[in-house]
């Protein structure tokens, strides 16, 4: 659970959260930027307009105080310009005058490189003042042109041909504007940083239902079909959650029905075997009577009687196996574990079934394992019986240990035969119930459940069983079960022989320990 939480908290590079936050920040940035830009522009224009208007008005005012005599004498005009230059407002300016071909200024240079031909033409051809902002070498200048007019009569005037120019550096304005940019930037960046907080909150708000959905989906995936999401609100996510809940309920209902049907089928099989068992108990008790007395009957009756006797025995085995499988299906099978000597357990199995001279063994002594002797006996007996029936001799049982990847010490039991091996198309199915590898061989000595029961027994031990073919061609069935019993039940492991790491080499059990057979 904690691992799942950790995964939730991880920031996916371009996940939904990142994109939401980015989108939010983008909107915040655009609005902050636009506001800043508009404010900046207004403020800048206000600064500039104020400076320009002041300059133009005051320049014209200054010029109007003049009373030049025409035609203008350059020396006198220069004196005028000095006066005008000294009364600069709001910033110092240099004054230039043009009169016919005369060029006079308040500075050392008679003409200015800042005054554009456009401004000059406007000043000469129109009788009104004008100004132009010029940036030269990164320095902004305000250039003002005022044509000098003179009155000709009542309210009428004519240009005298004299034009005065003022050139003013706008350094202060530039400083103010630069300060505005800085202020806008310094205001917008913290604003963006602060916007990150609501962005994260909003992303969380949107993502919480998504996260709940994911957790619910995951818990459904892990089998908890009753997982539901709390539906709140009426948005699209709420619709999604509602749909999810409906689907989950439907799924739960279907699965429930399936499980009930399966349980009914299993109970039926179990009930049938139960019911068969009572008559079989009576029949099996008297088969001996039939066998003994068959000799005294006429041959046909004797054959019939022997057939009934033999089939009754097989039927009893089949019913017993069916009962066993039913118990596995109902999870009613219990493991009665005991710590035993593995080699002795296998030897006793072979001895009990009189297989000890038909089966070769490589059973190193001293391997103690925690297992259910009765179930392990069934496992070994089924594997060896299967090898003897379907393969051909020599059948070999090897015992060994190895260490699994996760460090668990495993008891490895391997049964091989000298037959042709298992066909590849059969291999995946040999642990299936009633699977017949050969359609022609309708029935064999076994019930058809032997390997399935073997597999269930191995699983009950927390182990695995594999089928394959050896390099020599014969079938190899390998059972691996934890030496200490199923994981979770702590085996006592009083002697450590089973945890020999060198035995980890052992797909060929016993090979690493020296053959003892």
């Amino acid at each position, binding site marked *: 659970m904690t691992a799942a939480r950790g995964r939730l908290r991880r920031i996916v590079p371009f996940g939904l959260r990142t994109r939401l936050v980015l989108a939010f920040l983008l909107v915040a940035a655009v609005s902050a930027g636009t506001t800043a830009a508009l404010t900046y522009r207004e403020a800048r224009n206000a600064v500039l307009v104020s400076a320009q208007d002041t300059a133009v008005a005051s320049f014209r005012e200054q010029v109007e105080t003049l009373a030049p005599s*025409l035609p203008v004498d350059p020396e006198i005009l220069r004196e005028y310009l000095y006066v005008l230059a000294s009364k600069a407002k709001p910033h110092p300016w240099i004054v230039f005058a043009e009169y*016919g071909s005369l060029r006079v200024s308040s500075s050392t240079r008679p003409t200015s490189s800042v005054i554009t031909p*456009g401004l000059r033409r406007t000043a000469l051809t129109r009788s009104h003042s004008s100004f132009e*902002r010029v940036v030269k070498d990164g320095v902004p200048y305000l250039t003002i042109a*005022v044509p*000098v007019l*003179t009155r000709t009569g*009542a309210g009428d005037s004519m240009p005298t041909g004299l034009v005065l120019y003022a050139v003013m550096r706008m350094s202060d304005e530039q400083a103010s504007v630069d300060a505005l940019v800085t202020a806008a930037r310094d205001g917008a960046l913290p604003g963006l940083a602060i916007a990150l907080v609501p962005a994260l909150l909003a992303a969380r708000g949107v993502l919480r239902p998504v996260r709940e959905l994911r957790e619910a989906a995951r818990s459904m995936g892990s089998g908890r079909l009753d997982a539901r999401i709390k539906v709140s609100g009426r948005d699209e996510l709420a619709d999604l959650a509602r749909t999810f809940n409906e689907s989950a309920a439907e799924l739960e209902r279907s699965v429930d029905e399936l499980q009930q049907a399966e349980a009914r089928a299993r109970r039926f099989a179990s009930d049938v075997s139960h019911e068969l068992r009572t008559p079989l108990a009576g029949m099996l008790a008297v088969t001996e009577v039939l066998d003994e007395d068959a000799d005294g009957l006429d041959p046909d009756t004797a054959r019939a009687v022997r057939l009934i006797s033999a089939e009754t025995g097989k039927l009893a085995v089949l019913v017993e196996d069916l009962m066993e499988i039913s118990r596995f299906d109902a999870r009613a099978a219990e493991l009665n574990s005991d710590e035993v000597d593995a080699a002795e357990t296998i030897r006793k199995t072979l001895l009990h079934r009189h297989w000890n001279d038909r089966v070769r063994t490589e059973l190193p002594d001293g391997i103690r394992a925690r297992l259910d002797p009765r179930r392990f006996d069934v496992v070994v007996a089924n594997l060896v019986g299967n090898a003897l029936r379907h393969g051909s001799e020599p059948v070999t049982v090897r015992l060994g240990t190895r260490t699994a990847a996760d460090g668990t010490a495993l008891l490895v039991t391997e049964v091989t035969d000298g037959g042709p091996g298992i066909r590849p198309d059969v291999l995946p199915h040999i642990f299936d119930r009633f699977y017949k590898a050969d359609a022609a061989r309708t029935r064999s000595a076994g019930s058809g459940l032997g390997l399935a029961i073997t597999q269930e027994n191995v699983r009950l031990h927390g182990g695995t069983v594999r089928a394959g073919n050896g390099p020599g061609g014969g079938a190899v069935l390998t059972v691996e079960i934890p030496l200490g019993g199923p994981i979770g039940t702590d085996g006592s492991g009083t002697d450590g022989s089973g945890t020999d790491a060198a035995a980890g080499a052992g797909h060929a059990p016993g090979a690493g320990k020296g053959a003892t057979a």
Partner: protein
Amino acid sequence: MRARLRAAAALAALLPFTACGIQETDVIGAGGGATVDVLPARQIRMLLFFLSPDGRLMPSPRTVGGGGGFDDGRQAPESAVETAPPSVEKTVAALLGGPTPQERRAGMDNEPSLPGPRTRVDVAVSGGGVELGLAAPLDGLTERAARQLVCTVAYAESAAGGVPVTLRGTDGTRAPARCDLRPDAEPAATGTASR
């Protein structure tokens, strides 16, 4: 779709940083020019219109002095005070006499096609207009020269310079014209003469 979105986002992000600092502007009008009183005062001057180096009319007021005149009246008398305005004939004669050195220093000059300084002129006021007779042909007279004459005559006849002026030469008469000092009305091409 995605690319367009991204471009829009980039544009939006750039917006605050465009148009930073102080930009250049076009030429912007800002009210009238500066109207001043010029010397010499109206009562004691005659107004002559010469051409500036770039071909525009430039007014040049000259103080009217006694004895100033035709032969060598180039020096503007200073002390003489005459209450009556000078006659139109005198004024035209002064114009045809050409600019003084002082005026010449400011680049003023006569249009070369104007008749010479000794040309006889006569003026006749009839109805609302003035007719200027020149003892010279008008044939070679350029439009600029004509305007020099028209404006000088108009402002000599009336203070506001609003009367129509008809030019008559030895070879005919031109249509009446008014002095138009508005610089906008100035013909752009300097060398165009109308015949």
